[in-house]
């Protein structure tokens, strides 16, 4: 019974390239899916463990640049996801170990600082990173000579990855670790008294979130084939946080909805010219006012009403 809407969604997602033959729309969806994976990662840290993190875009960038630099240097593609994961795990430990004792504004400031350090590193280490002009002609996904060709095949690869990312997130949510994360967010003292090592839990959330971003970055570099520092800036970090809030903090479905909606909306509103930002901003505010729990909470609200009526 409960799996019907999920099956319908999977069918719809698989049918999209058949309906939308426009390469531009598929390309946009591909970016939306990558954003959804990054936001799912952010959800571990912010949605569940309750720690503000403006460093998620930097982890995304670290994954993308690691992959781009490695594959351009001639390494086989299959090594790049592993390399990206190693880089982001090391970076998340470097940032997380000293900062997981910090809270609220202090943690926000530190993660903003981290994002800025990574961005400046990318901009100024020109011989390796290409500076502000970025890196072009990045080799595509290829496993022993096989790899997706064209937008549509990339779309299927990314959808499959997103499905996998959702599966892992939902397994973690319904495990000791997921409950410990939410307990840490709700009351650190009570979590500790229940035997939860809250610092370790926050660090794990941070690391898992970084791995999601790193892998999405890896796929971004090898499917879009062009990266520049703009895609991983502080603005992007704020946008990722907005996707999480608008979609619904702590909700897996909300992360996907928020990421897809806020990736597509600016493009859909492009005909408005300069005015689109106004409408976009009003839309975000409207969601927060009408549904403080995010778009995902609208669905559960209507379910609740139906349950009460029936």
């Amino acid at each position: 019974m409960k799996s019907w809407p999920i099956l319908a969604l999977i069918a719809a997602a698989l049918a999209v390239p058949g309906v939308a033959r426009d390469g531009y729309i598929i390309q946009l969806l591909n970016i939306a899916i990558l954003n959804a994976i990054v936001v799912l990662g952010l959800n571990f840290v912010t949605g569940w463990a309750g720690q503000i993190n403006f460093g998620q875009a930097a982890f995304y960038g670290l994954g993308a640049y690691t992959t781009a630099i490695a594959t351009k240097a001639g390494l086989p593609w299959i090594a790049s996801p592993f390399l990206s994961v190693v880089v982001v795990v090391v970076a998340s430990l470097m940032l997380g170990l000293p900062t997981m004792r910090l809270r609220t504004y202090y943690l926000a400031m530190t993660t903003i600082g981290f994002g800025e350090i990574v961005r400046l590193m990318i901009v100024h280490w020109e011989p390796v990173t290409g500076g502000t002009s970025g890196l072009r002609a990045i080799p595509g996904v290829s496993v022993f000579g096989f790899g997706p060709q064209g937008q549509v095949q990339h779309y299927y690869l990314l959808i499959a990855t997103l499905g996998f990312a959702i599966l892992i997130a939902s397994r973690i949510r319904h495990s000791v670790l997921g409950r410990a994360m939410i307990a840490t967010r709700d009351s650190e003292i009570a979590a500790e008294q229940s035997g939860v090592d809250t610092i370790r839990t926050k660090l794990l959330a941070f690391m898992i979130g970084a791995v999601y971003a790193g892998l999405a970055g890896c796929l971004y570099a090898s499917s879009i084939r062009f990266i520049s520092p703009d895609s991983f800036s502080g603005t992007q970090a704020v946008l990722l946080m907005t996707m999480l809030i608008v979609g619904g903090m702590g909700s897996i479905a909300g992360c996907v909805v928020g990421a897809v909606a806020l990736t597509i909306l600016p493009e859909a509103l492009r005909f408005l010219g300069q005015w689109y930002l106004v409408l976009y901003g009003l839309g975000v505010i409207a969601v927060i006012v009408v549904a403080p729990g995010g778009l995902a909470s609208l669905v559960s609200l209507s379910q609740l009403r139906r349950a009460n009526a029936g």
Partner: protein
Amino acid sequence: MTSEPIIAARGVTRRFGGLVALDNVDLDVPCGIVQAIIGPNGSGKTTLLNALSGASHADAGSIRIGGNEIFRLKAHRIARLGLTRTFQTIRIFENLSVIENVKVAAACHTPTSLFNIVTSNARQQQSEAEIDSNAREALQIVGLADRANDNAKQLPYAQQRLLEIARALASKPKVLLLDEPAAGMNMTESMTLLATIARLKNSGITILLVEHNVRLVMGISDRVTVLDFGKKIAEGAPSEVQRNPLVIEAYLGRRHRHA
């Protein structure tokens, strides 16, 4: 009564700036009894519970729980050693369901790894099943089994207090600290609570409770410790303590001597 007390604290001292909240307090709690800490407002009762449970560490002293020194140990390590607590102001996990609240603590002694979680293998499924049955058992004890799948924040106040007790029980403690468990409860609810505390004692858990309502305490406690201005002023059976002139003075006045 066994010879070795389950809690043996010596010279516990806690200062907040110039204020000495706990002044060289010794506390022994024999195994398997209900012991109460009473005292006027600001006498250091909650500070002592915080020091014992690791929520806020003491500045000096020695605290042994079942023979293990826990002075300045982190709260989650103390919980795993078998001492846990409830709170004066309710601290349930609002974004989890009732059973999930209890599962957080039930997982205390079940080791797991990220690999098991991600692959959802047989070991993971088995440990989740164990956690689930432990959590349901704890809910049964406090009478919340039928609310297992509700959101924790939807429970009425008195039941949220019971949920905190169930959560504490799920970590299979040897010692349970209850910080004003009857606060905000009506008469019937308090009576149910007392019955639950008696049942817990019979199941072998040592209970140390802080309570404002002295009359409530006298009925269920085997031993009473009285604090005043951070010092232990009396200790013994409820009837002895009630007759102690120092205790009567602390509660009824002649405060000018301290000022």
